[in-house]
């Protein structure tokens, strides 16, 4: 059994809803590593809680309306528990081999979609889950994620700066939620 802490950055109002009921899934084939609830975790960064805060601040900004959608952020620390067989670890060689196997397996299906995806990691993982090929419950990987500063300055790197994970069924794999920090967003996001 694998147990680790995940940090989820969101608005204060959403945090209240999460504590009250549970997390809502992010759904879409263009999600980094498939459908699920996303967390920053320890890995290539030792400060996933800080990254969750920066994410919540960056996500507040509405580029069309030119204002923050929310003025207060919240970081929730969740305890995630997953069976070793149900964790797809894309930071390891074994995990990448599994992903490559899935890509081969769904090659035809992806071609038939006749749609261009910038990245297909999430799409392939979603296929694998839907078809029950692997008992995937949690996926983790290293990615480059842009926060407010990088968005404002237009920085784009290939070097990953975060380790993130997605939990497909929060009711099953999240055993505890605690608010770690809250705060005003101010003008940091614009």
């Amino acid at each position, binding site marked *: 059994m694998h147990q680790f802490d995940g940090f989820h950055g969101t*608005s204060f109002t959403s945090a209240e809803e999460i*504590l009250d009921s549970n997390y809502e899934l992010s759904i879409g084939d263009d999600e980094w590593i498939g459908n699920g609830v996303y967390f920053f975790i320890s890995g290539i960064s030792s400060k996933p809680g800080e990254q969750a805060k920066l994410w919540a601040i960056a996500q507040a900004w509405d580029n069309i309306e030119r204002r923050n959608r*929310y003025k207060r952020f919240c970081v929730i*620390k969740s305890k995630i528990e997953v069976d070793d067989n149900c964790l797809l670890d894309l930071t390891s060689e074994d995990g990448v081999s599994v992903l490559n196997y899935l890509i081969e397996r769904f090659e035809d299906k992806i071609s038939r979609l006749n749609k261009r995806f910038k990245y297909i990691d999430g799409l392939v993982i979603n296929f694998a889950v839907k078809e029950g090929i692997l008992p995937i419950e949690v996926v983790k990987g290293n990615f480059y994620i842009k926060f407010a500063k990088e968005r404002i300055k237009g920085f784009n790197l290939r070097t990953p700066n975060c380790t993130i994970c997605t939990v497909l069924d929060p009711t099953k794999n999240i055993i505890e939620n*605690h*608010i*770690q920090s*809250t705060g005003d967003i101010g003008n940091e996001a614009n």
Partner: protein
Amino acid sequence: MKIQLDNWKILNLNFSSREEERLENSFDLKTGNFFPEDKSKTFGVGFEIEIKDKKFDLSIEAIFMFSLDEKITEKFKISDFPKINAPAIAFPYLRAYVSNLTLQSGFDPVMLPSINFVNLVRDSENDEN
């Protein structure tokens, strides 16, 4: 439930006088809370203050630690106390500190405005809804 202010400290302070005076003063305030895992009855209120005076720039980061006589629950964390009552208790200390600091630095003392934290929080909640 009893709550008390245990201690406070300045984490970061930047003061620089301006060669050229600006036309107007401005002031920005951000607050936040944090809940240390290893201390179940303690929480912190953080302040970030940025003052752009006509004659100087001053930025301050401060934390105020509060303790309760019972364990902090998740419900307490999202209640009004950490985001309204605790900052309201702490702010006058910071206000006095800023006033003394600016006076002792050879400038006219800055008196930060009184902040109505109830209105401040309610306004941000209304904006979100």
